[in-house]
């Protein structure tokens, strides 16, 4: 009996010990597997609240989707180490003072690569912080002074309007017989500077500019009073300079309802769902630089990115066709030169020669461009896809490239 008890106790003890050992080994294994991967923090400083929230939110969500995807598949190998990507975000509320605070926070966290800010004044405001703290940042802002030497830490994350605008106007002059053009912009630094460069490009091409000073408050909800005098000028083309995705359908709808029958275009990325909901069939024919991806040039990886984004956030945002690129450029450049992981000078050196296959667009390459516009490679190369909106979707008009 006693020996039986001892045996049973021993057996139970052995089983318990065995179970604990298995658990410990499993836990240890897991911990060691997690410990193997280092952490690579990438920052975001931009607007994720207020009327322009869509701009920054599409950035953050693209970064988070891609980071989760990379982490889920074992991380990214840079040099001899494998890293999990952590996205650190800061909402600057489109306020340059907050953008500076955001960039300071990134510096305090030891982050060297930041996506954003989304607007001109924010991007200009963070420049001293980025340059003094050794941060490379990828703004979605167009002032050339950010990218022309002696500035060297900013890398334009998209195609600028002074690059896409002339291409669009030329196309419309040739194919649609456009002669008279009118510009309208929100009374803010980005849209105004985009309008001015658009007006200059249009005049340089020989177009007659019939309206170039009309502006609106960015929080305008009813654009009929703003557009009434412009529509009466009967331009062939109405350019919505720097228009926010939230305002585009309202402007289009108001113009069409006032009887405007000419073409409407924008040089900023838009969202098909927003256009369809806000303007419906009135938005048909609207021309924009529709993000760097359309079904025709999309790779399977881009399709998977869209699926993952939609699954994670419930709805895709077409702006992310462009916004997906910044993080990819950062990672691929670091892979090309692992020394750049904490040394932005190394990163800058690599930018001049960097080249990698574009995982998101067919027949395209990841490379830094901007020599023509900025005299140095301070722009990511993304396909310049000019699209026409039709029945709820963007259709490709033509695909261009920036050099």
């Amino acid at each position, binding site marked *: 009996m006693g020996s039986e008890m001892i045996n049973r106790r021993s057996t139970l003890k052995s089983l318990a010990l065995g179970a604990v050992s298995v658990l410990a080994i499993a836990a240890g294994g897991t911990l060691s597997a997690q410990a193997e991967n280092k952490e690579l923090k990438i920052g975001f400083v931009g607007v994720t609240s207020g009327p322009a929230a869509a701009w920054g939110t599409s950035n953050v969500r693209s970064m988070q989707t891609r980071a989760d995807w990379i982490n889920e598949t074992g991380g990214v190998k840079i040099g001899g180490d494998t890293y999990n990507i952590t996205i650190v975000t800061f909402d600057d509320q489109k306020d340059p003072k907050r953008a500076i605070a955001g960039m300071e926070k990134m510096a305090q966290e030891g982050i060297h690569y930041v996506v954003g800010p989304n607007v001109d004044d924010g991007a200009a405001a963070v420049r001293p912080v980025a340059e003094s703290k050794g941060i490379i940042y990828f703004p979605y802002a167009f002032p050339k002074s950010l990218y022309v030497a002696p500035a060297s830490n900013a890398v334009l994350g998209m195609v600028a309007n002074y690059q896409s605008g002339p291409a669009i106007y030329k196309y419309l002059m040739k194919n649609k017989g456009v002669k008279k053009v009118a510009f309208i912009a929100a009374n803010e630094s980005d849209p105004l500077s985009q309008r001015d460069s658009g007006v200059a490009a249009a005049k340089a091409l020989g177009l007659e500019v019939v309206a170039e000073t009309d502006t609106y408050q960015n929080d305008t909800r009813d654009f009929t*009073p703003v557009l009434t005098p412009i529509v009466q000028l009967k331009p062939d083309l109405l350019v919505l300079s720097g228009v926010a995705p939230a305002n585009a359908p309202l402007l289009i709808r108001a113009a069409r309802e006032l009887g405007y029958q000419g073409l409407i275009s924008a040089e900023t990325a838009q969202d098909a769902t*927003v256009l369809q*909901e*806000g303007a419906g069939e009135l938005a048909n024919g609207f021309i924009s630089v529709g993000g760097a991806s359309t079904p025709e040039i999309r790779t399977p990886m881009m399709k998977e990115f869209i699926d993952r984004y939609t699954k994670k956030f419930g709805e895709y945002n077409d702006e992310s066709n462009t916004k997906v690129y910044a993080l990819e450029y950062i990672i691929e450049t670091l892979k090309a030169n692992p020394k750049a992981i904490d040394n932005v000078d190394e990163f800058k050196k690599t930018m001049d020669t960097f080249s990698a296959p574009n995982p998101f667009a067919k027949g395209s390459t990841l490379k830094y461009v901007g020599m023509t516009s900025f005299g140095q490679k301070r722009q990511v190369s993304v396909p310049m896809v000019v699209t026409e909106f039709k029945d709820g979707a963007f259709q490709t008009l033509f695909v261009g490239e920036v050099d």
Partner: protein
Amino acid sequence: MEQVIANGLYLGAQYALIALGLTLIFALMNVLNFAHGQMYVLGGFVTYSIYGQLKLPFALALVCSGVTLAIIGALMEKFLFRTVIRRSKREESTMLLAAATAFFLDAVILLLFGEKQRGVPKIVSGVFVSDWVILPYDRIVVGVIAILMIAAFVLYMQYSKPGRAMRALAQDRIAAQLMGVKVDRYSMIGFALGAMLAGVVGGLLVSITGVNSGIGGPISIKAFLMVMIGGAGVVGGAIAGGFILGMMESVGLTVLREYGDVTYLVIFALLMVFLSIRPNGLMGKPWG
């Protein structure tokens, strides 16, 4: 010019409706409801969800917007503003509470409905075109509904028992209490009514201008502007303020267009001069 006047009248009607709820809450409780714009946005999103997403009738969506905001308004009054008013003698406490509520609602709306601009199918298709004026039918319908709602609100305040009680409260809270008016009850009804108005106008206008989570703050600012022009706490003042602002915007955007975006600059400059002459606005006196 006819087009400019038509634009101004339409804008004025929607602005007046936006300002009514704000002025009602101020008249009754002396609370500057900074969350008024957020309530408008929430009303817009309720209509968007029911009419735009679930494809149920627009009228039902509008009712749901009103009821949802009325409930939220009643709860806010009962559990937040009433408590703060009772415990604090400083008027800025309610202002701070209202500002906090605005930020809170902004965050909740962004979380629930996302960052995108949302729109719904037109409630009426087609455009009225004449030699003088072009006006889409849906704007005409919305403008008429706005004017009918303003009229109904004025009649309700004038002739109904709760309306009379609320006017008495606005005139003299203590005297009204002494005369047997249930202050807590009618304050709650008034706050709910103000919130409901914000919700209904948000729902109504989602069919024209859509809605997005970031427009609450700008809507509140515009509503305050109208109330300042007309006189805080006065129904007629809010209506007048709405129509004056709408007309000034429409005329300014046409007449001043050659000078760039100076319309609001001129409006604000005029407002400063006007307020220095009439600090209480056009009709700035106790309600009644």
